Each structure stands twice: as structure tokens, then as C-alpha cells.
């Protein structure tokens, strides 16, 4: 009869595989990565999905497992040894055993979709062929199929099948496996976004991509759950929710490598066809990873000095080559509004006027040569729903990274657009202005702003104030 193994618990990182520029496995970096992670984990998982196992040769997989065993300092090593065909999988499992692995993690056979019988036979053959503990592995996101619960239920009877890793994030599946096989095998959660609910539901541990980035958080979650302190466990899970989501949904190992790099651990690049950034992981999301690591205290934040424009309102539009006297002469409308608390506060300085005034020239010129790192954007409610009167948003401070820029072209732009249409609807901005005038808004947004939703509301309110000043009380600022 099956016997549960004592080490099927705790936090295991699904290690990335570092590659050199020329595409070779970077053994030194792999060792460095393990040394970085080891103090906070209960074991290691080389050659998993996050480790790009499907891009590795048989020899490379064996070597990576050897290194992991060497570096593990006696902690268990669960070697990824899955393959599409049974014959190949058996070879990988034999190699892993020779390399000293404690157990093997075998993904559901993929690409061709075998029947339930075929899936059962796959695991049965492997378990018979090699005497090593085996973990089943359900990951429908890449397989396009679940490892059927009824098959798991039967496989759990095989003595050397000791566990299952469930990466689906589908808690109905996790609960079903616990219900039908939990008496004989242990379940690891493999989806970073649902660690706490899975632990509360009864899983014994986890294999996670993010467990090489913030393993100590996951250790603390386990501790809190064991102590029955769900409030603390929720707080901890929440603190890494966004990063976990990015890792799970936007590139997996690719995103983890970027995070490690920001933390000073060089894990190299992924193998093609994956791209370091610009593929599944967007540049914008990479910028978000940095911000979240700063928030977690994993990397130092580059604090930026920030202050709102202080000059008299009419003096603030020098970047548009509009002097106070030119504004006065052309009778341009001026208004300003400042709303909110640091760091989501915002100040909006508005200039509006006829298209055949110097403002019209400034507007056209901005679109031919944007200020460096202060590219102006046309205000839209959403793409193809351009606000009128046509309005440019000009960032008041340089945008040093895409995350900061996103605060301008996301929440700020959306809020400015809504404030303008609010004013059109209320009649504050006359309908004739839609055709006859243009506007430019100097948007001062704190580079440290974090909360998009708060920023959005502050900008909408500040812009409303600025419009009321500009259009409400005469045209001469």
C-alpha cells in the first residue's frame, strides 16, 4: 500500500534554467540561483515548466539535476522528468535517479491527447520501470487538458506515486483530488495566485515559480495557516498577489527571470521562441514587476524628487513656447486644479483657445517633435473615441520608466477625457469649442504614485476644477 513521504510539504521553487547569451545552459548562474534561494525553501525543483524543460536536451536535464543535488545540501530534489511520450519520460526518470534526485515530477503527457487509459498507462509504466517516488502533475494551461481526477484516484494506489502538483488554480479540481486521493498521496499547489485557499483546503505544500523570488513570504503563509491565523495569511497572500498574477499569466519563467535580474541574480534569458520581454511579458508589465519588488522591499526604490510647478499659472507653459504675455494677447483660457494626497495627488494646468491662435501652432508643433520623455498624447475616452475639443496631455515631469508613463497614458488620460466630456455635457465647455478650439493640459503626476484608481479620481476632480476656471469665469486667465 502507498505510504506518504515525509518531505512532501513546504515550499519548493520551480527553478528557472539560466542560459548564456549563446544559448548554452549557464551552470554558474544556476548554482548562484540555488544558493540565493536555498535558505528559505524546503527543497528544489529543477527542469519544471518554469525551468523550460521542454527546450532542454536529455543531457542538459541530467546535468541540471546533478547540479541541483550537489547544491541542495541534503534537501530533497524533485526533478522534472515529463515528456510527451512514455519512452522518453522513462529515460528522463532513469537519468534523474542516476543524478541523485529524490523524486520526479511527471507532467501529463501532452501534444497528442491520449485517452484516460493512455494517461494511466503512461504513469503506470514509468512507476514500474524506475523505483523512485513520483509526483503527478496537472497543468491544463499548457496542456489544454486536465489530468482526469478518476485517473489520479487510481494512480494513487501505486506505491511509488507519492503526490500530485496541481497548477490549474482550479480549486474545484484540487478539492476533488484531495477528496478522492488525499488519503494516499499529498497534494502540492502549483498556482501562485491561490496558495492560501489551497493550503486552507488541505494541500501540504507548494511548487511555485515565485518561490525563488519571495520564498520567505510563502513560508510565512504556511506558518500563519498552521497557527490558524488567517488574517495574517491573507495579508501575506495579498502582498504578493499582483506579482504572483504577473508570474502566472504573463510569461511564467520569463517574468521570473526578469524579477531575479532586478534583484541582482542573473538568470539570463529564455530560449527561443520565448523573448525576454515584448512577447508574453509586455514591457509595461516588466515595469510593474520592478515597482512591486520595490514595494516588497526586494529592491531599493529609486526615489525621485518631485514638486508641482510653482510659477504663476500663465508662466507654466514655456515648454509650449507660450509666454504669459502671448497668452494674454491671444486671450487664451487658463485654469488649474490640484486634488489629492501624496503620492496620488495631481495638478492639472490647462490652456485652451482658438485653433488660429498661437496655441494652435503649439499644438501642431508638439505632434511633430514631442519633448524628450514627455511625449504629449491626444486625449481619448478609449481608442477611437477622441475627446473634443482636441486636447493634448503634456506630462510635466520626465517619464523615467514605462510604469510611470502608464500612470499618465492610463488613469490620467482616462480621467482627463471624462472630465472634459462631463464639462461638455454640463455646458461648461460650449459645444462650439469642439470645432473651434484646442486645449493643452500640463499634467503633474507624482512619479511615486501607486494607486491607479485613486489617481484617476484625483485627476478627474482636478481637471474639472481647471476647466471650470478656464471656461467658467471669462476667457482671460
Amino acid at each position: 500500500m502507498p505510504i506518504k513521504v515525509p518531505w512532501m510539504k513546504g515550499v519548493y521553487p520551480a527553478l528557472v534554467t539560466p542560459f548564456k547569451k549563446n544559448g548554452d545552459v549557464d551552470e554558474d548562474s544556476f548554482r548562484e540561483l540555488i544558493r540565493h534561494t536555498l535558505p528559505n525553501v524546503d527543497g528544489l525543483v529543477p527542469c519544471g515548466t518554469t525551468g523550460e524543460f521542454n527546450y532542454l536536451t536529455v543531457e542538459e536535464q541530467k546535468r541540471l539535476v546533478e547540479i541541483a543535488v550537489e547544491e541542495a545540501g541534503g534537501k530533497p530534489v524533485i526533478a522534472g522528468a515529463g515528456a510527451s511520450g512514455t519512452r522518453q519520460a522513462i529515460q528522463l526518470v532513469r537519468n534523474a535517479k542516476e543524478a541523485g534526485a529524490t523524486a520526479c515530477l511527471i507532467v501529463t503527457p501532452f501534444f497528442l491527447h491520449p485517452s484516460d487509459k493512455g494517461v494511466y498507462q503512461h504513469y503506470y509504466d514509468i512507476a514500474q520501470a524506475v523505483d523512485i517516488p513520483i509526483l503527478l502533475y496537472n497543468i491544463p494551461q499548457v496542456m489544454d487538458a486536465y489530468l482526469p481526477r478518476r485517473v489520479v484516484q487510481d494512480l494513487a494506489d501505486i506505491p511509488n506515486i507519492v503526490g500530485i502538483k496541481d497548477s490549474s488554480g482550479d480549486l474545484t479540481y484540487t478539492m476533488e483530488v484531495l477528496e478522492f486521493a488525499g488519503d494516499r498521496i499529498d497534494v502540492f499547489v502549483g498556482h501562485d495566485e491561490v496558495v492560501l485557499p489551497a493550503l486552507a483546503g488541505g494541500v501540504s505544500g507548494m511548487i511555485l515559480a515565485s518561490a525563488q523570488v519571495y520564498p520567505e513570504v510563502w513560508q510565512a503563509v504556511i506558518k500563519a495557516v498552521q497557527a490558524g491565523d488567517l488574517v495574517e495569511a491573507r495579508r501575506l497572500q495579498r502582498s504578493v498577489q499582483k506579482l504572483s498574477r504577473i508570474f502566472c499569466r504573463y510569461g511564467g519563467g520569463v517574468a521570473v527571470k526578469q524579477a531575479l535580474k532586478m534583484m541582482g541574480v542573473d538568470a539570463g534569458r529564455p530560449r527561443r521562441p520565448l523573448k525576454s520581454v515584448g512577447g508574453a511579458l509586455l514591457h509595461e508589465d516588466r515595469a510593474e514587476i520592478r515597482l512591486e519588488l520595490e514595494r516588497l522591499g526586494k529592491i531599493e526604490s529609486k526615489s525621485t524628487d518631485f514638486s508641482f510647478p510653482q510659477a504663476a499659472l500663465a508662466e507654466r507653459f514655456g515648454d509650449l513656447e507660450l509666454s504669459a504675455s502671448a497668452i494674454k494677447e491671444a486671450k487664451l483660457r487658463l485654469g488649474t486644479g490640484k486634488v489629492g494626497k501624496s503620492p496620488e495627488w495631481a495638478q492639472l494646468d490647462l490652456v485652451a483657445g482658438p485653433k488660429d491662435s498661437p496655441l494652435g501652432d503649439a499644438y501642431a508643433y508638439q505632434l511633430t517633435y514631442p519633448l524628450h520623455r514627455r511625449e504629449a498624447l491626444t486625449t481619448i475616452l478609449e481608442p477611437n473615441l477622441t475627446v473634443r475639443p482636441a486636447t493634448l496631455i503634456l506630462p510635466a515631469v520626465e517619464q523615467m520608466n514605462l510604469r510611470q508613463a502608464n500612470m499618465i497614458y492610463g488613469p490620467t488620460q482616462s480621467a482627463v477625457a471624462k472630465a472634459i466630456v462631463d464639462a461638455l455635457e454640463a455646458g461648461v465647455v460650449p459645444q462650439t469649442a469642439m470645432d473651434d478650439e484646442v486645449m493643452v493640459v500640463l499634467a503633474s503626476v507624482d512619479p511615486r504614485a501607486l494607486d491607479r484608481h485613486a489617481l484617476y479620481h484625483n485627476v478627474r476632480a482636478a481637471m474639472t476644477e481647471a476647466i471650470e476656471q478656464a471656461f467658467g469665469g471669462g476667457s482671460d486667465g
Partner: protein
Amino acid sequence: MGNKTEWFKGIFPALVTPFTQNDEIDEDAYRALIRHVLPHVDGLVPAGTTGEFSYLSIEERKRIIEIAVEEAGNRVPIVAGTGAQSTRETVELTRCAKDAGAAGALVVAPYYLKPSFNEVYEHFERVNEIGLPIILYNIPQCSGSHFRWWTAEGMAKNFENVVGIKDSSGDLPFMEAMFEKVKGEIGIFVGHDEVVAAALAAGADGAILASANLIPDLWQKIYQAVQAGDLATAQKWQAEVQKLVRIVVRCGSTQAVKEGLGMMGLPVGDSRHPIMPGGAFRREDREELRIQLENLGKIGRVEREFDLDGRVVTSQYPAVPRTPARFEGFTLKVGEGFAGPPFQELAHIDLLLGVKEGPVGRAIERALSEERPGHEVRVITERPRTLLAPTVTVRTAKQRRHVYEEAAKGVVQAIEAEIGAGVLPEDGLDELCMIANVFVHPAAAIRQRVMFNNFKAMRAAVRKALEGRPALDELINEKEAARHPFRYAP
């Protein structure tokens, strides 16, 4: 064997249900629509999916069926949509259709709660008892369940009033199974506009189509060609309408058809909420639909004047009812064009258009006289003089190629297309100038999409700048619901 009827063949439009400004059924517009399609079709389908049956009261459904019967006046059969979620309501509606004089009922598989197929079978068994000919209706895109072939086969063979099936899935293997099981015994109709020629060629007896509101004549042409064994002609016309019907099928169906009819001068209002303009039928689709209707000769050209700061020129313009009567105010016009997908290859153009003596012309000449590290500008065509400026700093050779070759090619071709279409007035090209500020994502890869999305975005931007769109009512109606794509955290 079989219940096949003589009348269930050919082209049937799935009529939209016109609504007035205050959201009531617009009977006059509905009658006008029927008169518009009637000469080209073999039957009418009121209260189908395209007719927004799921948003209509029982009384309204009854009324639009009655009107269709009245307007058709025995010239063509009426197949009334009578499907509902419960058996009870479906039976009631089917009885109403029978009383109203419909030739048959189009009965969708019960939806939302997903009954098992034996429950579906017995649902239709009750409807069968009414005595009105029934057309089974498979539309998994909406109902959430796909007929199993054995369910359809069983109903075709066991229920004496089942005379046909409409398959809107576009799943040709399913259709082939239907041909194998029940061809000749019931009428088999295709309901997916993108595969009509293929389905007819494979043996379908006809088609019930949303886009047959817009182009009934072209569908009739395709149907007739297949009947005559002329597959080359059928394929040619299917290809001609493919882009139009893909927009209709995939991008908001009923709202797309309604706006298309509006562009053709048949105002039928908007869909009922929660369907809304600029929703599933996105603005970029609207531009494209209009262009396709122009290409198919469904939107004609009329003379329009352009007052270029004093000098008046004219053009044969593809005007739609909302097009301004006269174009003026060429100091500075602003237009935005956005086209995708895919995300990395999307195009976003900020366009300025004006006379050379105005802000646009001055900005162009000044830009050309200055050094622009990372933002090199280029004049890409002289008629009208058009400056291409990159939004994003150009850092790599790949970006250079994407901006100055692919995007530029798309923009130039768009300008040529708009001159050809009469949108940019040939006689005013020497006075006018434009600045196209183009955004190409640094991670873009597919060159063809960069080019083509810029082509689409530029055509939209030119038209929007000239026609002063979006209009005030669009902005106000959609202000609250607008979904800004970058407002949210990942």
C-alpha cells in the same frame, strides 16, 4: 420519407428589429427594411437572433411577425423566430406565430440553463405538437450548447413537423454529418455568413443570414451561382463580401447590421441595451464596414463642397447620413485612428489636417528645418503634403524599418485610397497638408500587420478629422461606459 417542404430554400435575411429613439419598435422603418430586401430574397425571418428576440416582449415578437406576414403578402414565406428558454414560453410563441400566419418557426435550442439533450429533444417534441413547421436552430455562440448530430437527426426523423435545421455554428463537420444523416429529408440551412458558399456547395439548401439585410442581392447571386454549378462565381463573390460578413458575424452582429443599414440610408436605430454603439461593434469595425459597403456599391457618392479657407473645391464624396453637408474650418482639423489587433502591431495615429498657411503647414516646415534625434520626420507624399512623425523615440533598426517603411507605406496607401474614394478632394490636394503622428509599438514583429493597421488607422483618422467625429452625442452617451485599456493594473 421526410418532411422537407418546397418553400424552405434560398436566401432568407434574419431581419433586424428597428427601434425608435425612445426604444420602441419602429414599424415604419421595419416595413421599409422589408421592402428593401424583399425583391432579392426567398423568405423572411423576423424575431431571430439578429432581430434581438431575446430583448423583445412576447407582444412585440408577435407584432413584428404579423407585420412581416403582412408585408410579404404571400410572395415569400415567413419563418418566425419563436425560441425561448422555457418550453412553456416557446410553445406560446410558436402558437402565436402560427396564428399570425407564419409558414414556419425557427426554434433555438433552449439556453442559459443548459438542459441535457434528452431534455432538449422533449422540448422540441412539445413544440412539434403545435403543428407549425419547425426549423431547428443551432447557434452555440449564443446558446452555449452545440446540437449533437444524433439529437438533430432524431428530431428530424421522429417529429413530423420538423422541416429544417439552421446551423449558425460555422462548424462544417457538423453540417457534413447533417448531410450524411438527413439530407433530402429536411431542409438544411447555413446561418454563418463566413461559410455560405462552402456550405451551399457542400449541399446546403439555403441560408438565413444577418448580412442578408445589407446585401441580399449578393447572397442571391451566390445562391444562384451554386445552383447553376458555377462554383467559381460563388467563390469570387464570397471572397468579395468576406470582410464585410466577418465584421457582422464576429463584431457585434445586430448593431453592425443596423449601423450598416443606417449608412446605406435605411435608418433602423440602435440595438437595445446592453448592446451599444462602440461596444462589440467597435469603432474601427464601423470604419471598415463603411468602406466595405462603399466597395460593394452600397454607399453611393454625392457632391460635397470643401471650403479651404476661401477657395471652394468639390468632390464626389461617399457620404453617409451623418456626413456634414459642407466641409469647412480647415485651419486645423484633428483626427485619431486606432486599428488592431494584434496588440503589439496595433496602429494609433494622431492626425492633423489643414491648409498650408495654417498651424499644420507651419509646423511641418519648422519640423523639417530642425534636427530630430530619435524623432526624424519625413514628408512621405506631396499631394497632400504629409509629414510622418514617430510617437515613440526610434532606437533600433527594427523600429526604423517599422516606422519609416511599413507604417509609412500603410499611411501613403491610405491617402491614395481616400483620394480615390473622393474623401480627400483631388482639387484641394495642393492646398492641404497633414501631420501623421504614428505610434508603432517597440515590440512589434509582424510587418504586414504594422503596414495594414496603419493603413486602416490612417483612413479612419482622415475621415474622422474631416467629418468632425466623434460627435457630441457619441461622447456623452459613452462617457461613463468607455473602457480605457491602460487605466488598470496588470
